[in-house]
């Protein structure tokens, strides 16, 4: 019988406590982010897909077309090409595509790049209609950014 009363009284009390908690939450500010209108700022260590880094002097990519990143990539995501323009010693990057469908974001390419010409982007909002949408032309992206 004492069990019964402690059940009834304890139950009533805990129900009231529960109501107290939810009503407090009701008047507290909203904590969710209104996603399509608001974005989170990604932390500096966030690894998005790779992106070319801009050379501040020339405005073009920093890349020297050494091909190390292509070799380092275990999944073979990176395809690049370059050519030497007339009267120049250095190669210029003409094509840099990243097949993001295969990328594991391991970061080996970024590590292997001596001049620091590639870096992780902060892009996370990557929804697309087809697989082909994930083959990125990084030179184009670099131009769009500047």
């Amino acid at each position, binding site marked *: 019988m004492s069990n019964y009363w402690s059940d009834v009284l304890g139950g009533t009390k805990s129900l009231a406590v*529960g*109501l107290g908690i939810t009503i407090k*939450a009701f008047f507290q500010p*909203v904590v*969710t982010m*209104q996603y399509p209108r608001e974005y989170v700022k990604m932390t500096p260590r966030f690894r998005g897909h790779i992106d070319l880094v801009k050379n501040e002097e020339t405005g073009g990519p920093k890349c020297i077309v050494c091909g190390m990143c292509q070799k380092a990539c275990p999944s073979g995501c990176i395809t690049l090409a370059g050519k030497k323009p007339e009267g120049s010693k250095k190669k210029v990057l003409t094509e840099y595509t990243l097949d993001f469908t295969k990328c594991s974001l391991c970061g080996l390419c970024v590590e292997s790049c001596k001049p620091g010409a590639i870096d992780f982007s902060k892009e996370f909002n990557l929804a697309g209609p087809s697989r082909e949408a994930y083959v990125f032309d990084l030179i184009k992206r670099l131009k769009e950014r500047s």
Partner: protein
Amino acid sequence: MTANPVVRLLISLLVVIGFIAFNAAFLVWVERKGAGHIQRRIGPKEVGPYGLLQTVVDGVKLMSKQLFVPDHVDPILFRVAPLLILIPAVMSFVTIPFSDVLVARKIDLGLLMVFAFASVNVLGLLIGGWGSGNKYAVISAARAVSQNVAYEIPMLVTTITIVMITGTLNMNEIVAQQAGGFWNWNILPLGKNFLLAAIMPISFLIFFICSLAETNRAPFDMAEAESELIAGAYTEYPGMGFGVFFMGEYANIIVGCALATILFLGGWQCPFGLFPGVHWFLIKLYLLIFTVVWIRWTYPRTTIYGLLNLSWKVLIPFSLSILLLTAAILKVL
């Protein structure tokens, strides 16, 4: 008020249906907003200011769906069931007094009539589940019946307590007796009788819990249990068939809260005895409805055992003892 009784009846019916439709739409919005804020998110906000038009849009969506009647169902019962939920709720409004004059029909047995119609509600659920010809729907309909039977008893017993105190089944009369200030209300009748004031709050609590259970509201919504049984008894209902069930549910919530307001909270009476009127009724009504929403998003759903235990082991003994105590108090003092 000398208009032709038929005209008067039609007008009040139209007003009541409008009131219910508006409230159903508005309450769905309140429900979703309440859920949102309790979970510290915003809830609907895209359609219309503060998402107010969201339920209108949802309604249009439901109406545009095909009214699909599956092969294996009982065609007549299947179609009748949603109406059996909605119509009794609409009929109950006929006797519910919103204010001194704002009542479709002042019936001496008004309270009896409301409870008579309220018990048709469970028939609608049972028929809906049975007519669906689906095991899960039948199971949840059976649960709904056992639940309704279990909770109708304490609810009626507490109502009898009130009837004993007021000596009438006429709801206008019951409210009129609570005039003068909150100390005269039946929830805490300090102005009338101190001993009664000690037990009536428990009575109100029992009544409120029962009206939650009667309307199949969370935490007592096993019949529906959308997360386990996929809307239980309504599993087979598409589009607006389902929508009507929901409107019926919300109408029943309003009836339940209106009854609690009338029986315990002094109906349209002002807490300080100043300006009684329909606004007080609505304020109390919507505060209770908010509590219903608040409760829904606070407690998890109980099990069927928990539900029946609560009724048979706690609510019924308590309501019966209160009935006896009230009788003793009224007789002796």
